[in-house]
């Protein structure tokens, strides 16, 4: 079972993990990744970050990414939550959690999901700096390389 959400509200990691495995006793391992807003970028202090997305395509892209993970690994549960709107340092941006009978599937599926999400889901980050001004975050080559290792 997969749960995918795009929301402005914060997420509760403990509540999401509880929901991921509710009623299941066949789970042997849970993989979890939480991305958070960092307070610096390129030596400048980040005051806030605004996440923009493409409503409609976002949900389609996330569903496709989750379906691919489910095809590759024997997942018992899978949760992907991505926040949009204006966030401040320390806040959670994205949560990816997977449950499986064994740890390797859960850990690998979690890494796959966040790597593919970063390069295939239509979200864009805009940083506001404490000293004024702002900029759109540029895509990183490292993210493409991380996603490429899952291509087959």
């Amino acid at each position, binding site marked *: 079972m997969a749960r995918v959400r795009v929301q402005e509200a914060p997420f509760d990691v403990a509540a999401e993990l509880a929901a991921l495995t509710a009623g299941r006793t066949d789970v042997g391992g849970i993989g979890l990744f939480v*991305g958070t807003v960092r307070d610096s970028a390129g030596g400048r202090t980040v005051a806030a970050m605004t*996440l*923009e*997305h*493409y409503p*409609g*395509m976002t949900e*389609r892209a996330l569903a496709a990414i989750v379906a691919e993970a489910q095809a590759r690994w024997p997942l018992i549960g899978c949760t992907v939550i*991505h926040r949009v709107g204006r966030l401040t340092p320390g806040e959670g*941006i*994205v949560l990816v959690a997977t449950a499986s009978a064994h740890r390797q599937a859960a850990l690998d599926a979690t890494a796959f999901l*966040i790597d593919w*999400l*970063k*390069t*295939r*889901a*239509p*979200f*864009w*980050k*805009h940083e506001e700096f404490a000293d004024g001004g702002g900029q*759109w*975050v*540029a*895509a990183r080559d490292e*993210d493409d390389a991380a996603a490429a290792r899952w291509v087959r």
Partner: protein
Amino acid sequence: MRVLYFAWLRQKIGLAEEEVVLPESVRDVASLIDFLAARSPGHAEAFANRAVVRCAVNQDFAGPDAPVRAGDEVAFFPPVTGG
């Protein structure tokens, strides 16, 4: 055709979306960009460096050779930076 713009393309163009009537010359994403870039100085600036512009046709990623037609929803945006 409904055309959507996101992130800095939206800011440079000054529109989140617009309806455009396609001339016959527009058959694919590349020729659509040629057409859109001529609509205003903001459009021209947004499409000045096509290497940093990505496209989706009907909410699926599409390359410059992908065909487009009148009823499509086409979006232009920078490389994605979520997660």
